[in-house]
């Protein structure tokens, strides 16, 4: 298809992009303590900085339809099956590369300040560097299995970082949940890979290379493709926290805030979107899968937005908002608009990272307080944080001329022009909800009267420059990144020209009449405006209309507990499974299976208990037996004659 027309060039530089963070990680593992907390952090940040520089250089070198390739060695070879450890960079990867290293670098810098007083700082940077390595592996791997390696690797880092403050068992439980739910998704992913490999293998093709696969897709039957893509999508559902596997993401907020920003907003959770885009040649010919993806994406977007409205934890709101935004991306994927999905991924990385880091700044200032009901009026205390937060909130709400506006609008317009009006409607309503809950948060935290607890109040301080500078950079990005993908009626999309070749012309932006497009945009903007107004009316002035959780009732209570999904899973899956396991471990295994084994022994023992009565210990009794046997032998002998 498309990949064959692109030029492939070898660039040995590529390997160093992921390897440098890995080296820094290794150095910190062995010498981190000796180097001291500060040096270790600086080293880690510098490593990511170097990767960023390299990524920029590669980006600059990369021609529009070109692919850079770097083979290290053959990783696994078994029979005809063969997978290389090799990296590739094309336009799509280049964007992901910049997101990962760029935002990763900023968050490393930020962490230098945020984690300054933490005992486990070295450990934190080890994990963070390891994460960058795996994330780069994920985006740069030139085959599906390497992608999977990165995929699992970032899951590991997510587990480690969510449970970073291990003293509190709750954090570790959240980490476990994240890892295990992801594993459930990965089960689908790996089965999808198996199905792909074996089906192609049956035709004599053994490959998982992204460069090779598109050529052979036509060998597969539509049903097989549908099954493969559905299985792969299960993996994406797990990693990108879609319905029904989203439950881990809100809990994952137990990790340090920079982690939430980097892993659970900007990069790792978007891996599912990246994967579907990377495998667009498989997904595109699977309409059934696509429609499921679209429905799940839209449902997740809406559902998570409703839950976000009721949350009181500053990070939980952002977490649900992330789930919701990821839903948008999958909505885009589902209608075949891969380019739009990646575009939203790109802009979302900036404003969501900015929001998380901003919330981190707030939490930092308030000595770890995360409950928005105990905030309010922080505008004057934290001016830089406030202004960056405002910009990012505008962006995520989709206020015109911010990044979020362009990317979200692109998705909605694609949905509309694709003819999926229901999906479009859900998207638009969700946009309104997004505006509402984000501004609700903004007002609750920064406006109104202060509800900060008295003992914290004297310590409120603006964060140091090492934290605010990344905020400012990200805030700038939250506006201007969107301008790359402006619609045709403005100045046209630089983005499409860059990314579209990767996806081929087949599913490019479908351009309807410009007037319709503007009209659709206006509808969205209007609904967003309503959302903002409602939030303003309800929360801006005083911020006092905050219902305590105990008094929550009705729909509010449903939303606050996110529809009791966790409890539902607990009831239908976790507890029955635990009970079965318990029965197996405590009844079945020791009593039935081992009982059978020991039963055989007991039967033998029973026989010998009877039989041993013959052993009286009396020699003369034994002699009787001896005699009897001798007689028997003699008589036998006589009968033979």
């Amino acid at each position, binding site marked *: 298809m498309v990949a064959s027309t692109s030029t492939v060039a070898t660039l040995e530089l590529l390997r160093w992009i992921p390897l440098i963070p890995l080296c820094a990680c290794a150095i910190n593992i062995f010498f981190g303590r000796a180097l001291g907390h500060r040096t270790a952090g600086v080293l880690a940040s510098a490593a990511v900085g170097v990767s960023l520089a390299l990524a920029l250089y590669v980006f600059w070198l990369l021609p529009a339809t070109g692919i850079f390739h770097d083979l290290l060695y053959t990783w696994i070879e078994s029979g005809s099956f063969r997978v290389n450890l090799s990296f590739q960079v094309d336009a799509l990867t280049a964007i992901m590369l910049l997101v990962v290293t760029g935002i990763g670098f900023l968050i490393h810098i930020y962490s230098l300040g945020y984690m300054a007083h933490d005992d486990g700082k070295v450990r934190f940077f080890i994990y963070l560097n390891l994460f960058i390595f795996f994330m780069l592996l994920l985006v740069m791997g030139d085959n599906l299995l390497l992608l999977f390696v990165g995929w699992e690797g970032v899951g590991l880092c997510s587990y480690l970082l969510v449970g970073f403050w291990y003293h509190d068992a709750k954090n570790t439980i959240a980490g476990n949940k994240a890892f295990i739910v992801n594993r459930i998704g990965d089960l689908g992913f790996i089965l999808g890979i198996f199905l792909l490999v074996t089906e192609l293998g049956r035709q004599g093709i053994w490959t998982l290379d992204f460069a090779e696969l598109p050529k052979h897709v036509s060998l597969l039957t539509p049903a097989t493709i549908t099954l493969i893509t559905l299985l792969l999508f299960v993996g994406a559902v797990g990693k990108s926290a879609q319905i029904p596997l989203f439950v881990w993401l809100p809990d994952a907020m137990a990790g340090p805030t920079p982690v939430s920003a980097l892993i659970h907003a900007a990069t790792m959770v978007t891996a599912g979107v990246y994967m579907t885009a990377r495998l667009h040649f498989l997904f595109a010919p699977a309409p059934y899968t696509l429609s499921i993806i679209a429905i799940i994406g839209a449902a997740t977007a809406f559902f998570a937005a409703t839950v976000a409205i009721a949350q009181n934890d500053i990070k939980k709101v952002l977490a649900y908002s992330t789930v919701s935004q990821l839903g948008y991306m999958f909505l885009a994927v589902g209608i075949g608009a891969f380019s739009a999905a990646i575009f939203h991924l790109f802009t979302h990385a900036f404003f969501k990272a900015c929001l998380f880091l901003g919330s981190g700044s707030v939490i930092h200032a308030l000595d770890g307080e995360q409950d928005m009901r105990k905030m309010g009026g922080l505008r004057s205390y934290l001016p830089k944080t406030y202004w960056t937060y405002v910009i990012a909130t505008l962006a995520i709400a989709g206020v015109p001329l911010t990044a979020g506006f362009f990317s979200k609008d692109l998705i909605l317009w694609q949905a509309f022009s694709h003819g999926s009006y229901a999906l479009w409607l859900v998207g638009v309503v969700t946009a309104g909800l997004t505006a509402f809950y984000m501004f609700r948060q903004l007002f609750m935290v920064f406006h109104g009267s202060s509800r900060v607890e008295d003992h914290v109040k004297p310590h409120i301080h603006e964060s140091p420059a090492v934290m605010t500078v990344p905020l400012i950079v990200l805030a700038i990005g939250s506006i201007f990144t969107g301008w790359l993908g402006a619609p045709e009626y403005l100045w046209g999309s630089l983005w499409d020209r860059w990314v579209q070749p990767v996806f081929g012309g087949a599913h490019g932006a479908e351009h309807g009449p410009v007037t319709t497009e503007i009209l659709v945009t206006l509808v969205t903007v209007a609904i967003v405006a309503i959302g903002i107004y409602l939030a303003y009316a309800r929360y801006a002035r005083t911020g006092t209309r905050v219902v305590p959780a105990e008094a929550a009732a009705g729909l509010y209570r449903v939303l606050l507990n996110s529809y009791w999904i966790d409890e539902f899973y607990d009831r239908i899956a976790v507890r029955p499974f635990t009970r079965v396991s318990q029965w197996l471990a405590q009844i079945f295994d020791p009593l039935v299976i081992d009982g059978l084994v020991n039963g055989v022994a007991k039967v033998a023992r029973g026989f010998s208990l009877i039989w*041993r*009565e013959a*052993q*009286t*210990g*009396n*020699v*003369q009794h034994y*002699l*009787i037996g001896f*005699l009897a046997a001798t007689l028997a032998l003699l008589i036998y002998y006589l009968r033979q004659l």
Partner: protein
Amino acid sequence: MVPLDYYLILSAIIFAIGVVGVLIRRNLIIVLMSIELMLNAVNLTFIAFANSLGSMDGQVIVFFVMAVAAAEAVIGLAIVISVFRHRQSLDPQEMQLLKW
């Protein structure tokens, strides 16, 4: 001449008597003596065969049996002494430590 069978029958009878002694007596010394009887019965058979086959081998075997019998009697009696010392009894039926 006395036929070979006569000797054989005689030794069978003596052997059986020895066996009865081992079986029924409750005195270890008599049990040992009964064993000597059995050995002698066997010896008689050997000698009878040696005579009728004209071979010295049977007599040599008897010589060895005697050596073994001497050793057996010595060890057996030593055991009897030490058993009697411990238990003040020579009744084999009272020695049942090796019961299951």
